[in-house]
């Protein structure tokens, strides 16, 4: 098995999330569950054509999957695995060691004065 190209996965996630319409589509799928393009067009201020375009990009990033179904009622479902890959990059950047190390310094010098 080739080494996982997790940067490529994460990059697609961040590209997908950079667009407000795509964030709105993902948020709608996250909060409301699987939906068709028509459902999404009814709920969001985005045209069906634009939704189709965004769903194509989201599917390519692996962020949504199409459920097999009747031709006109294809439902799209959020697929969270790539999000979990992106999360670990965010976790590395969100990890704050400076504050606890500062607290350690303070804690040690408090011990000196006692």
């Amino acid at each position, binding site marked *: 098995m080739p080494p996982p190209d997790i940067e490529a996965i994460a990059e697609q996630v961040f590209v997908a999330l950079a667009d407000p319409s795509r964030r709105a589509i993902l948020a709608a799928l996250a909060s409301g569950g699987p939906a068709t393009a028509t459902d999404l067009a009814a709920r969001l201020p985005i045209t069906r054509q634009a939704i189709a375009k965004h769903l194509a990009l989201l599917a390519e990033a692996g962020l949504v999957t199409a459920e097999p179904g009747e031709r006109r009622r294809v439902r799209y479902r959020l697929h969270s695995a790539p999000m979990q890959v992106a999360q670990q990059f965010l976790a590395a950047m*969100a*990890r704050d060691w*400076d504050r606890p190390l500062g607290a350690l310094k303070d804690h040690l010098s408090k011990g000196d004065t006692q």
Partner: protein
Amino acid sequence: MAFPDRIERTVEVAQPPGQVWAALTTAEGLSGWFGHEAAIDLRPGGSASMKWDSYTADMRVERVEEPAVFGFTWHIYGLPEDDPRRTYVEFTLEPAGTGTRLTVVESGFAQLSEDAYREAYGGNTEGWASELGELAGYLDAAS
């Protein structure tokens, strides 16, 4: 993109390694600067935990070489509770004059389990392409 797998910080403190060691490896020490509450079984494989107001970190002690190296693994903060990935944290204490040079390295942020890899990368290669073709056709017909 170049995201870090590891994070490294070095600080110099005025206290000798023995005193820093106690702050890092005892429940009393850890609760004085890191967590609000701490518990630790200081031996390789021993468990430790730290509590904050709304979060508890469960740790597993990995390396205990008093007073020079202390290592543990813990859950990656910000990931779901059931995510099995953990990072490794290692503190290294070196004498520096009368004080200590303390280095902390946390590594493993860029790891990915085989399952997660398969799901993230392989799971979406089939199925949706043909469905999207159908969607486009449907939208064309509807417009």
